[in-house]
């Protein structure tokens, strides 16, 4: 049987083995491409992880007393579920009306998207990107582009800070390692950081919104 090698955050180490409260691999939409992608969902923590796979040809693994071809290495990193909610909110938003969230987050291809409705503080998350109405103690939501762009701006700024802390090389790609000057951060202009962060976040949002964000 195929075996997979994963790098997970350590606190998931003692996730229970029981399906109800353990870890689950689910297929949900990739908010950038609209195609499917594999995610990890912790039922007890109600937390979502994206799965990135490190792929380089001509590798294999020895795992204990076995060999596993491919040499793939999977990373599970926590992911902000709002990016996934956005996918459904933008689609529903085209109708221009307020709707209950459980009628927005519906998907017959990726039926596990309903797990997103179990997220703690869902209402707080939704407030970042929607207008909200309450009628008879029932909440209705509508996608708000303005709020979303403001939220994404914060994301970009957080990402810029993280790129700097991690000394990620964001300058033009032709810069070769031989010219890597020690005060690289000075040499990488602020706008390079913003552009890089925008590009990175655009891997999680549709093209149209990425263009809006770039203008914004």
């Amino acid at each position, binding site marked *: 049987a195929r075996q997979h090698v994963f790098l997970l955050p350590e606190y998931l180490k003692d996730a229970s083995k029981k399906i109800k409260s353990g870890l689950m691999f689910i297929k949900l939409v990739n908010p950038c491409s609209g195609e*499917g992608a*594999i995610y990890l969902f912790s039922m007890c923590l109600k937390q979502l992880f994206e799965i990135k796979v490190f*792929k380089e040809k001509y590798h294999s693994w020895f795992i204990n007393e076995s060999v596993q071809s491919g040499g793939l290495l999977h990373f599970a990193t926590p992911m902000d579920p709002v990016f996934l909610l956005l996918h459904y909110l933008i689609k529903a938003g085209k109708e221009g009306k307020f709707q209950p969230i459980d009628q927005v987050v519906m998907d017959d291809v990726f039926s596990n998207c309903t797990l997103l409705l179990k997220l703690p503080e869902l209402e707080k998350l939704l407030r970042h990107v929607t207008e909200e109405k309450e009628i008879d103690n029932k909440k209705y939501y509508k996608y708000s582009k303005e709020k979303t762009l403001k939220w994404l701006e914060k994301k970009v700024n957080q990402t810029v800070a993280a790129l700097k802390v991690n000394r990620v090389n964001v300058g033009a*790609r032709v810069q070769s390692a031989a010219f890597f000057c020690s005060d690289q951060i000075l040499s990488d202009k602020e706008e390079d950081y913003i552009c890089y962060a925008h590009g*990175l976040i655009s891997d999680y949002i549709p093209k149209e919104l990425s263009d809006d964000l770039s203008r914004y």
Partner: protein
Amino acid sequence: MDLSELEKDNTGRCRLSSPVPAVCCKEPCVLGVDEAGRGPVLGPMVYAICYCPQSRLADLEALKVADSKTLSENERDRLFSKMQEDRDFVGWALDVLSPNLISTSMLGRVKYNLNSLSHDTASGLIQHALDQGVNVTQVFVDTVGLAASYQERLQQRFPDVTVTVKAKADALYPVVSAASICAKVARDQAVKSWQFVEKEQDLDADYGSGYPNDPKTKAWLRRHVEPVFGFPQLVRFSWRTAQAILETEAENVTWEDSALEEQEGSRKITSYFQGEGPQARHPHRYFQERGLEPATAL
């Protein structure tokens, strides 16, 4: 012959040499170079030199040294111990090249072919004798590859010495015969007392002479091929015989350079210029540079 060094680590190269007879540092000496074990699919290849003063060549001849291939194992052993007894005027040195070293040289990313390995080992041994102070004035070598170009190469490397490279030198020149006996004795002993580096219980030593057409060797190879790891390191993986068995009995393995070789020349030049269509969105450079892409299936 004390091969304990080799038995400690038989995955690389091991050099042995006799003490240098004092007379060899004074009088002009003749030195012979030969090898043993070029053909076998398993076991080491051994390069040996043997030298003595020109004035004592007749004594060496009197030992009735001859081309090792024409002698039985007992005769070789007897002659070698005789040479050891005559340690006051005969010296020798040898390089044992393990099968692992041979295979990794021939199969490495930078190919190091067998003839170059042989040439370098032979000149390394001649240099070793010179470094030990032996007064070498003539060298006789059994050829590997084209005799003329080999001779010219050695002559250039050792300009103060007269070099003669000739086919069948081990039958023509006593010092080369003596070297071939040293090499063969060393190889026979190394193969007989081979220490398997693999922790395998059922590895038997019934592998015969090691030559590809030896039925015992063939049967042994078939008996001990492991689908993922191939053979124990006694075997020369770079040998056609071993590769043929791996191709039929073992799992397929692709290496980066071999796959590239297959692809080279097969890509149409236009493929370098075709875009993937206006809509294709590449993953961000951050992920591309790290070889990361979204997992779409497990």
